[in-house]
C-alpha cells in the first residue's frame, strides 16, 4: 500500500450482478464468528452499499479521500487519516451524523458497532423509571476500514463471485497509466477498459 495516497475499493458496474455477497462478507468480517451465517455474533451492518439506479446496480463505499470531508467536519476528532486509510475511532464518535452529511459518496452510515464481541453502548433514561439509566446499543459512525486487521485483505473483494471489486492502489494505477500513455504516444494501444474493471 502506498503511504502517500490511500488505497480504496472500486466496483465495476458492468460486472456487478447485485448479489450482495460483498455486503454480507463485509458485515460478517466486522463481527465475531466462523464460516456460517448462523455463527455470526452481532448484527450485520455492511460498510459498502449495493446501490440501484434504474438498470444500474453497484456497491458504493468509502474512497478514503486524501482531504476527507468526514474527518474535517467531525466535531470530536473521531475520524482520522492513518496509514490504513481514513478510520473512525468509535471511542470518540458521538453519532452526530455530520460526517454522513458531508461525505460526497454516502459512504458513512450510523450502525451498531461491535467491539470485542459486544456492541458499543449508550446510556438512556429508563422509560420505566426516569430516575435511572439503561444501556442500549448506540448507533455510531460506520464506514469502510479496508479490513486493515484482516489477514486476507478486504472481505468484499474476496467474496465477490464476479471479481467486480478491486482494491485500488492509486500510485500503481497512476504509474500504469503513465506507461500506457507513453506507449499510446508511440502508437501502441494498451488502454485498460475501466468498465470491465480488468487490471492489466
Amino acid at each position: 500500500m502506498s503511504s502517500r495516497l490511500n488505497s480504496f475499493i472500486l466496483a465495476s458496474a458492468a460486472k456487478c450482478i447485485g448479489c450482495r455477497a460483498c455486503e454480507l462478507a463485509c458485515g460478517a468480517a466486522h463481527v465475531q464468528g466462523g464460516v456460517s451465517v448462523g455463527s455470526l455474533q452481532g448484527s450485520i451492518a455492511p460498510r459498502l452499499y449495493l446501490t440501484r439506479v434504474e438498470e444500474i446496480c453497484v456497491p458504493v463505499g468509502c474512497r478514503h479521500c486524501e482531504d476527507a470531508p468526514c474527518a474535517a467536519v467531525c466535531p470530536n476528532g473521531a475520524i482520522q487519516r492513518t496509514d490504513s486509510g481514513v478510520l473512525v475511532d468509535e471511542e470518540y464518535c458521538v453519532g452526530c451524523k455530520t460526517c454522513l452529511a458531508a461525505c460526497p459518496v454516502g459512504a458513512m452510515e450510523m450502525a451498531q458497532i461491535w467491539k470485542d464481541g459486544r456492541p458499543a453502548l449508550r446510556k438512556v433514561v429508563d422509560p420505566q423509571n426516569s430516575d435511572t439509566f439503561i444501556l442500549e446499543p448506540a448507533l455510531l459512525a460506520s464506514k469502510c476500514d479496508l479490513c486493515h486487521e484482516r489477514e486476507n485483505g478486504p472481505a468484499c473483494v474476496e467474496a465477490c463471485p464476479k471479481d467486480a471489486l478491486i482494491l485500488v492502489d492509486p500510485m500503481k494505477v497512476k504509474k500504469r497509466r503513465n506507461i500506457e500513455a507513453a506507449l499510446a504516444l508511440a502508437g501502441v494501444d494498451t488502454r485498460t477498459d475501466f468498465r470491465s474493471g480488468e487490471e492489466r
Partner: protein
Amino acid sequence: MENLTQVVAIDQAVCTGCRRCAEVCPVDAIIGAEGQPQSIDTSKCVICGQCVLACSAFVSPFDDVAENLPAMRKERGLDADDQSLLFAAHFRSDIKRVSALLSDPAKKSMVQCAPAVRTSIAEEYGLAPGTLTPGQLAASLRRLGFDAVYDTIFAADVTIMEESSELLQRIESGGPLPMFTSCCPGWVRYMETAWPDLTEHLSSCKSPQQMAGALFKTYGAEIAGVGPESIASVAVMPCTAKKHEAARPEMQASGVPDVDAVLTVTELAAMLKAKNIDLTAMPEEEFDVPMGLYSGAGVIFGATGGVMEAALRTAIAVTTGKDVSESGVKFFPAGEGIHRASVDVAGKNFRAVVVSGLANAAPLLEDVRAGKADFDFMEVMCCPGGCVAGGGQPKLLPGVDRADAIAKRRGGLHRHDKELPVRASHKNESVVALYEKYLGEPLGHRSHELLHTHYGDKCGGH
C-alpha cells in the same frame, strides 16, 4: 399437517435478481429476468434448498424494507423479534411447531437426527466444518427437553436391511430393475415430477427419516407405554425437502403422521442458542436405546456413495458369511458426478452406480427409459456431495471455500464410521432386536405396513 406454507420460497421484496440461485438449481425451477425478483416454479422444484444456500441477498439494516422486518419474520414463521438475518431465498421455519410439541404435557417427545447433522452443527458455534459432535448433539437435545433422543442412523441401518432384501427379491423375481435408492426426498420428488413413468424403479422403502418416525409411533410407543397419538415425533435434518416429505399424506403408518415436524441444522442451532444451550460446552452423552444405537454403515448415509457402501457391507457379509468392516469395492469415476463399480455377490455380477447431484442423473434415466441401462442398482443424492451439502446445512458465508467445507463434513462422517465398534447395519444389536421382537423379518408383513410405501402417486406443486 394442514395449513403449511410453501417449504422453499423467494421473497420478492428482498430478491435482487442476481440469479445465482438459478445457477445451482438442478431442475431449472427459478423463473425471472436478470435484475428482477425471481420466483420458484413449484411444479418443478424438488425443494432441495440449494437456492437457499446460494442466496446472499439479505435484508440490511439500511434497506427501506428493513422497516417491515417484524412482518417479514412473522410471514416466515419466526418470532417478530428474531434476530437472524433474512435472505430472499429461504425455507419455512418450523421452530414454533417444535416448541409447541415440546411444551405439550400430553406428549412424549422423540427426536431423531440425520447422520450429517453431527458433522456440521458445530459450524453454527464458530467451529470448523467436519468437527464431529455426536455426543454433544445428544446432550443438547436432551437439555432442549426431548424425552427420547433416538437417531436417524438407527433407521438407516433398518433401511439397509429392507432395501438389500428388496434388491435381492427384485433380482430373483426379475424386476423392476435397475432399482433406485429412495432415501433422498429431492431425488424422489424429481422422479415423481420429471420421470413419472420410471417411479416403479424406486425402492419401496421409506426414507430413514420416515422409517424412524413410523417406528417411533409404533415400536417406540409400545416401549413408552402410550398410543401413537401421544407421541411428538421430531426430526433434525440437513435437508429442506425432508419438511415436505414428512407432510406427505401417505406417511402415516400408525394413522397419525410418522414425523410431526422437521427442523434443519440451522433451526436446531437457533433453538439451542435461544435456550442458552452451548452445544460445544456440553458433555458427550449417548443416544437412547434402543433406537439411538447405530452402526458406521448408517453414518455414511450422509455422504455420497454411503448408502451403496453400507448396502455392500451387509450384502457381502450375508452372502459370503464373511464379516467385513469395509466392502473393499472400488468405485471409478464415470462422468460428472457419477461413479460405477462391478462386483460379484453370491456368484452373480452386480453393477452399481452412484450419482451425486440431481442434474447428473438424467442421462442414466434416459438409458433406463430406453431399456438400455447397464446397471442393477443406483444410489442418487440430490445435493452434490450428499446430505453433507444439503439445503438445511449451515449456510456458508461468501468467500468460504464451499467444496473444502463439504469435503471436511464428509471426512467427519467417514472418521465417525471408522471409530465405531459396529460398522455394518445387520450387526447393530438394536436392529437385530427390532426384527426379533417386533418386525419379524425384512419385507415381512409389519415391515411392509410400517416401512414401505408407494412412490409416484403424489406430485404437482408444493
